[in-house]
């Protein structure tokens, strides 16, 4: 795909920044002028985002073309969604317990300990649940997709698929992107409830709160306008994770090292893009649903 080299250059540059590698030392080490490298990186980033946008456009186009690959989408939903469920439940419980403890420490100072379930529900449903789910899935699934597709690319398995009269983009990329978009909201709901349950466990141990009281307080102030937009925004997170990691894996080059790079970059780029997109989406939701405010 066009821009593969620039992509690699840009990727090195960005990964270097993200993992605290001093990019200046790299610039100096190969002796090329700084300005030239900066221009190259800017060009690379434009090409990279261009390539990613084209992938997005192709995924949309494939939605309306046969075959629809329902079987493979379901298989990917199982791989991406179902197999991530234990991770999400465990993380949700832990996050709920920790959030509950921190919230108690803060609210007790103001004599508002009774607000703990409500505060926890708002924190989890509106922001913490969607964001942590997105980051966890970008780690587990993003790396998996990047490595799997990268491995298939460098061992000619993608070429083999094409030679067997199979549209490899549709079979491998489209199905994963759709499965990620379908799974993220469901996993977010699971995360939200696990977090609430974790919060209840902490509260039950500390204050002896009952399940009914805890959940009636938690959901009493929560409206659908708080829950729906925040959960639905994870569809975009799913598109980012599936699209970015598929893009990097599908276009991987350079043997085993290239596969490793694709896996690492899948996690780094999808996490960074997800966090940045979250800022935009929170603002967007606050604009569309003033009551929800993100």
């Amino acid at each position, binding site marked *: 795909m066009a821009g593969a*080299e620039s992509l690699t250059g840009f990727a090195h540059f960005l990964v270097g920044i993200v993992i605290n590698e001093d990019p200046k030392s790299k610039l100096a080490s190969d002796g090329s002028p700084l300005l030239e490298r900066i221009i190259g990186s800017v060009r690379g980033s434009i090409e990279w985002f261009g390539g990613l946008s084209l992938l997005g456009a192709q995924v949309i186009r494939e939605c309306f*073309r046969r075959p629809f690959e329902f079987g493979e989408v379901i298989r990917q939903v199982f791989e991406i969604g179902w197999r991530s469920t234990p991770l999400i439940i465990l993380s949700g419980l832990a996050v709920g317990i920790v959030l509950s403890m921190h919230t108690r420490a803060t609210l007790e100072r103001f004599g508002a300990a009774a607000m703990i379930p409500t505060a926890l529900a708002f924190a989890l449903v509106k922001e913490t649940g969607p964001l942590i789910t997105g980051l966890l899935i970008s780690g587990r699934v993003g790396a998996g997709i990047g490595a799997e597709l990268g*491995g*298939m690319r460098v*061992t*000619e*398995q993608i*070429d*083999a*698929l*094409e*030679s*067997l*009269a*199979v*549209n*490899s*983009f*549709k079979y491998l990329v489209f199905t994963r992107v759709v499965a990620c978009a379908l799974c993220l909201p469901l996993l977010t709901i699971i995360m939200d409830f696990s977090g609430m349950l974790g919060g209840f466990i902490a509260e039950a141990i500390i204050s002896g709160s009952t399940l009914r009281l805890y959940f009636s307080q938690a959901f009493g102030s929560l409206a659908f306008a708080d829950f729906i937009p925040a959960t639905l925004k994870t569809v975009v997170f799913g598109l980012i994770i599936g699209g970015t990691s598929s893009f990097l894996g599908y276009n991987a080059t350079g043997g085993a090292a290239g596969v490793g790079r694709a896996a690492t970059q899948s996690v780094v780029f999808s996490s960074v893009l997800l966090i940045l997109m979250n800022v935009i989406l929170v603002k967007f939701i606050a604009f569309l649903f003033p009551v929800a405010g993100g």
Partner: protein
Amino acid sequence: MSEIDAKNAIEFNGVSKSFDKRCVLNNLSFNVKEGTGYVLLGRSGTGKSVTLKLICGLLQPDAGSVKVAGVDITGMDSTALTPVRKQMGFLFQSAALFDSISVGANVAFALKRNTDKSSEEIHQRTQSVLESVGLGKEYDKMPSDLSGGMRKRAGLARALALEPSILLVDEPSAGLDPITSAEIDDLLLHVKQNNTTLVVVTHNIPSARVLGDRLAFLDNGIILAEGTAEELEQSEHQLVRDFMKSKQGG
């Protein structure tokens, strides 16, 4: 049918292909007649595998046109290429088996995707193709459990599952011992005798002599010499004569 009367299974007309600034194929033209064996020879990095990928539409030429079974495939996307690719099989150098599914599932894959056969018929056809390459008992094994030669035979079984009229083979004897290499050659010869067009890339001269009705020697993006094995032995180019004297297998 004589070779002169036969139609062209593959036509290359003025095909050029570059990667970055490196020209790999330069205005390349050749034809392959139906039911014949065409062997591409040449040193490493001279564009032999690129030529195979152009035939299969895995790469697109920068200039010129590629026709397969009379259809101009230049510029076609994956979807448009589907009917053409159903007529082709491709044995990759590394076999390129799908490593997450069994050997049987690899062979059955194209049948499930591209035919209306029932599960039973697909199983029977898969078993029959695997037996034809001597892997009848390996149906449920994973590709990682197979040796290099067995993997190549499994790749051949997968390429033959749809009974292609054109078989593209990339270095069938690479990395194999002489006996296994000869077994693969026998299998390919058997395929050719069933009127399948073979296009083979190899460095193995004994193999090229067995499989090729016509041989082409690629160098610097052009065909330096083309003809029968005997004609290439008498080529005016020293490089071609030296290459043909090679007894190497691999």
